[in-house]
């Protein structure tokens, strides 16, 4: 039997993977993908508890998150494209214009 605990362990694992990805990777595309992982970890939590509590609001929330994530992906990829055109790189360490 799959209990909410299982979902939460999966969700936490995905979240940790996402955070580590954001922290350690230099490729901005990978970081972007890691952020998606984090968002989807949250989505798993939301859907799992919706099913557990027999309440549809969690699923509605998940759908909103997916929509926002899609929008965020569009904006984020636009920024990455613009950056790549200027710098010919996607290395996050090169994106340091705003330092002192």
């Amino acid at each position, binding site marked *: 039997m799959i209990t909410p605990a299982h979902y939460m362990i999966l969700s936490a694992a995905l979240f940790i993977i996402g955070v580590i990805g954001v922290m350690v990777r230099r490729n901005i595309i990978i970081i972007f993908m890691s952020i998606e992982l984090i968002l989807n970890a949250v989505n798993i939590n939301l859907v799992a508890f919706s099913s557990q509590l027999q309440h549809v609001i969690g699923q509605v929330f998940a759908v909103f998150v997916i929509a926002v994530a899609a929008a965020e992906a569009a904006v984020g990829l636009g920024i990455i494209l613009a950056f790549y055109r200027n710098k010919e790189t996607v290395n996050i360490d090169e994106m340091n214009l705003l330092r*002192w």
Partner: protein
Amino acid sequence: MKYIWLIPLLPGVGAALNGLVGIRAFSRKTSGFVACATMVAALGLSVLAFWQLLGLPPDAREYTVTIADWIPPIPLQMHDGGIGRLQVPWGFRLDPLAGMMLLIVSGIGTLIHVYSTAYMADEPRAGVARFFCYLNLFCFFMLMLVLGSNFLVMFVGWEGVGLCSYLLIGYWYEKKSAADAGKKAFITNRIGDWGFILGIFLIFFTFGTFDFREVQDAAARLPVESMHFGVLSAICLLLFVGATGKSAQIPLFVWLPDAMEGPTPVSALIHAATMVTAGVYMVGRNAVLFSHAPMVMEIIAIVGVLTALMAASIGLVQYDIKRVLAYSTVSQLGYMFAAMGVGAFAAGAFHLMTHAFFKALLFLGSGSVIHAMGGEQDMRRMGGLKKYLPVTFLTMMVGTLAIAGIPPLAGFFSKDEILFRTFLSNKSVWVLAVVTALMTAFYMFRLMSMTFFGGYRGPAWEPAGAGPAAAIAAGHGVAHPHDPHAHGQAHKDDHEVSHGPAEPHDPPGGHGGGHGAWHGPHESPTPMTFPLMALAVGAIVAGFFGIPAALGGSNAIERFLEPSFTPSAVHAGAEGTRPAAGAAEPAAATALPAETAGEHEAPHASRGLELGLMGFSVLIAVVGIALAWKLYVTNPEISESLAERWAGAHRVLLNKYYVDELYNATVISGTMAGGRRLWTFDRRVVDGVVNGTGWFTIIGSWISGLTDRYVVDGAVNLVGWTAQEASYWFRRLQTGLVQNYALLMLFGVFAFVSLYLIAR
């Protein structure tokens, strides 16, 4: 007659035309024509106005025109506590005295304008326009002086003629002596004007009005100050100071001889006929005022006769033809003042008129001589000119006989009237006046003899031009050099060495008579001889207006002028205490009708005496003439031996009593020293204060600058520096690495969550 204000205005318009347009655009002929035309128009109007004046009954011969307000009425607190009014109109008044003066100024002025067109013909074009502008301007101011109905309008004219005199004396301003003479005349005049203007102030303070007629009537109501020196005496003395400046009396006569640096027509018009008589005219205008101050009258008589004597004695030995005439003018003005001083106002004014004619004539004649001699003024270089300048000679002879007092020429009647009146009132003044008359006859005939008789002593000339004569002609063409020593260096070298100045030349035959180059002495052109002839006629007939009763005449001029010297009939009749024009005559100090009668009876009473005096003065004149003839024509060597025997006296006279030197040593050097001291004061104290203020400002601003830089800027920089230093560690956080920020964020979240968990 309503338009008498146009009379001064016309020459003013001429001056404006010539001054504003003429200097740039007019040819010599045009500017001369404009000037002459305005003067002729003014003369026509003057004659018309005078004619209408004659048409009035003798007591009402006065006409006042007010064209505008100059100073609108201003209420004033008077010294006696009442409320007075300061109001000055542009008022013009024609009365017998002004009428006479008006005819003299416009008549002689017109003649001299005509004369100038020829005399100034060799000047540069712009110079001619400038000359006529000044000359017209002079006539404008002089006519204003004459016609002004109050002291302030007269003062405008008074100052204006002084200005024009300055401008015209300094007409050849490139010449230092001319510029200096102009300054001398102006400054000396200013000293007199100082007295005049103080007198005017005192008149307003005393009477509360500037109007001549009102002042005279007010003065007539005051008692005669025979015993004490009151306010009327003070007024008169101050006015007389003004008159001494303008009319060249002791001690301010020094400017007039130097004024001969100006062109000769100017000398004739301003420094002989019109402007210098302004002082006499002013005294005559205020006759009532002056006859209330017997002490001042005494002073005037003494100053007048001493001036006459002194100037005549200087004139005895001068060599410059114009200077002789200048001293003669000073001397004759002294005569007029002597007449005024003894109360013979009409006689003084009469002499003013006759003198204007014969002195203008003599000056214009001398101008003609100078013109003929190519600018030479030294009489030692003339001689024998009679045959070259017949018209000039004849007319000047008329003038000379007139000034010497030979009957029946003009000078005889006027001078004799003065001598007679001085004899009646003050014997010592009379004695000095007679001595002056002797000298006058002498120096005038000395002038005539040295100029027209004897042998020719001037430079030689070549009949056809070229050579040394051309060099002189060049000087003649550019500007008549008036300093005898500055004249034509060329002839000095060429002729003085070989002939000596006193050795007579054989008169070379024939002369070119041309105008451009000097071909020897020649008669002047018609525009110059015509005024000479006209003035000669004047010098002959002018005296007939004043034939004294003793000779069967009626002394018309005296009766004509009488209303100008008396207060208005209304006041005189009411008060009955009109002091006499002849204050010295006791019979005169009664009511008006009796007094007027008395004045005309006095000559009758002593007819024998008057005839005797006349004979005596003619005798004196003849003696003077004979003496001059003997010394300068028949036996010229006597005069030189006399000059050697009385070398000291001769030198003193030749140097004009060293008056100029005295003034230089006292007044002028004193003024200069005072000026230098003031300058030192100025430099040290005033400039010191100014510089000190400057230094103070500099030091203050330096301190202020330091404060600004170190305190204000320091505070601002300190704030910036503090912020910069304080941010040294914090700015390290801003790595620009996104993952750093994310890590920090993570730590932050952990921290807050931990805190939340623990603290709960």
